[in-house]
């Protein structure tokens, strides 16, 4: 008897809690969409590039401390996700580690009637990482193309003239998922034109994951933002052609453009921003904001 009533009450409790959650979910979503649409609510939505997510968070925190009236929410997911969110109208600012494609700009214009505005927030060298014990020190863009590109001929470390100390000759290629701006940028810069990536790479979901896995895998190679370097990995010097000088990814080499795979980090808004979004972007580009870029291992935006 008691068991039956217990069952009943638990059943009821589950039902009720289910209803409450459903109710809350609805309420929550309406509130946030209102906040997004109306200008006087103090919220800024900021989504996109996984490379930039650490900087974006640091900016949001520092800015929130200085201006308690504004609430900035940051989401990662990849540059493609950020742009999709901008086009769908669910974010105010899209962070992007690649430039917006023309087709995406057109789509945004068609949906909202406003041209996307581009801001260069800083620079990033896309570092090529190997395990810290890997004897390789430098690599050329061509070699990277042969390693990563479709039909590329390099699959073994011995083809690069080295032997990783765990004895595995096979190169374990670490790559990113296809909505990542880093993925797109690396493909455009390294893989021969018109070609795709070679199949069979480990397509990881985050900039940090790439570096972590390489730190654990002696025969792996991968690419990620230079801000993600750890003690377990080594950044290779990169030269644009065989026989040319290879450069380390650092601030100096990126600013004077000798390091061949560096790129701007962007923020995009729909139309020329006004009010709090403009104030926020201006702040990010100010000295205080640019100091945060340096603290996170990236390079400040060139002043013009």
């Amino acid at each position: 008897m008691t068991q039956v009533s217990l069952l009943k009450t638990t059943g009821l409790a589950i039902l009720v809690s289910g209803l409450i959650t459903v109710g809350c979910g609805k309420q929550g979503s309406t509130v946030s969409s209102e906040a997004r649409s109306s200008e006087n609510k103090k919220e800024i939505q900021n989504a996109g590039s996984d490379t930039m997510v650490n900087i974006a968070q640091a900016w949001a925190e520092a800015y929130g401390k200085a201006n308690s009236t504004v609430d900035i929410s940051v989401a990662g997911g990849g540059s493609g996700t950020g742009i999709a969110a901008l086009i769908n109208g669910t974010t105010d600012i899209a962070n992007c580690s690649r430039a917006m494609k023309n087709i995406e700009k057109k789509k945004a214009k068609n949906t909202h009637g406003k041209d996307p505005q581009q801001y260069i927030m800083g620079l990033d060298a896309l570092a090529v990482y190997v395990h810290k014990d890997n004897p390789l020190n430098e690599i050329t863009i061509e070699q990277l193309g042969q390693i990563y590109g479709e039909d590329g001929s390099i699959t073994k470390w011995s083809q690069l003239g080295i032997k990783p100390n765990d004895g595995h000759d096979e190169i374990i290629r670490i790559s990113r998922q296809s909505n990542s701006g880093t993925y797109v940028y690396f493909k455009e810069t390294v893989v021969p034109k018109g070609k795709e990536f070679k199949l069979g790479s480990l397509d990881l979901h985050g900039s940090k994951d790439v570096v972590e896995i390489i730190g654990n895998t002696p025969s792996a190679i991968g690419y990620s933002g230079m801000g993600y370097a750890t003690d377990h990995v080594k950044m290779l010097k990169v030269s644009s052609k065989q026989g040319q000088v290879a450069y380390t990814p650092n601030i100096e080499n990126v600013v004077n453009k000798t390091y061949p795979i560096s790129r701007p980090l962007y923020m995009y808004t729909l139309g020329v921003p006004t009010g709090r979004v403009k104030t926020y972007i201006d702040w990010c580009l100010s000295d205080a904001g640019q100091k945060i870029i340096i603290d996170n291992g990236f390079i400040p935006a060139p002043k013009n």
Partner: protein
Amino acid sequence: MLHRSKYKVLSEGIIECLIRVCGISAVVFVFAIFLFVFWQGKGLIFSGEFEFWKFLTTKEWYPASESNPRYGVSALIAGTVSVTVLAMVIAVPFGLGVALFISEFCSPKLKETLKIVIELLAAIPSVVWGFIGLTIMNQLIMKLFGAPIGLTVLNGAIILALMSVPIIVSIGEDALQAVPDSYREAGIGLGVTRWQMVYKVLLPAAKNGLLAAVLLGVGRAIGETMAVLMATGHAVHIPFNAEFPYLHGLDSVRTLTATIAAELGETARDSSHYQVLFIIGILLFTITFVVNLTADLIVKGVKGK
């Protein structure tokens, strides 16, 4: 005749009605989901550019390519099959062994404890399993097998095996319990040993139920997403070839489910990439449907008649 108040009769009616709705809703949901998945994917299926045979048999998976998108899922199917098969090779003997032990060999007290612990195993969220695969198992496989990287078929298979063991155990145990006691008594009467009892009496008598248990475990393994996404390395690669041992457990693969999970968020609605992911959904739905239907038919003993 028993007299009931009007209120009681009414409330009884309402409750009955509610329960009926719950029962029917399950059927409605299944059909609604299938229709939805089919609807989202149909644009590409009927577009004329889509060749179903090529989709199934080529391994080039470049859905995001701007110049030349190619949708070949054979490597993804091979990934799902390899992980599932290896998982079952591990989980079936283990799961059936546990089911036999719980049902036949252990004391009632131990039995209760074991059942609770195994149910707890089923309650661990799949993302936690994935995390274990990504961190602990990765290192372990590299050390034990000398593999260049631990995010492999084997890693995913071990994780999936642990996830499907609870299903195999609980359904297998039910099947063994359902064997009439008269069979056991007859066996004891003939003086069989315990092992002979299991081998000659229980397993043949419960074979339909045990097979169903295994197939439901397979269904679980095929449909699992998060854990395999994290544990298998997510690389488009076919782990089978003509060299012994044919299935290479230390290769990285990518499964059908993981592909949907990783790529759906990025795609523009109604683009070809979006639709092809839904076609993969239809494919998965068909596979699990066939597996579960087979399990059902076996339980009902249709095959035996």
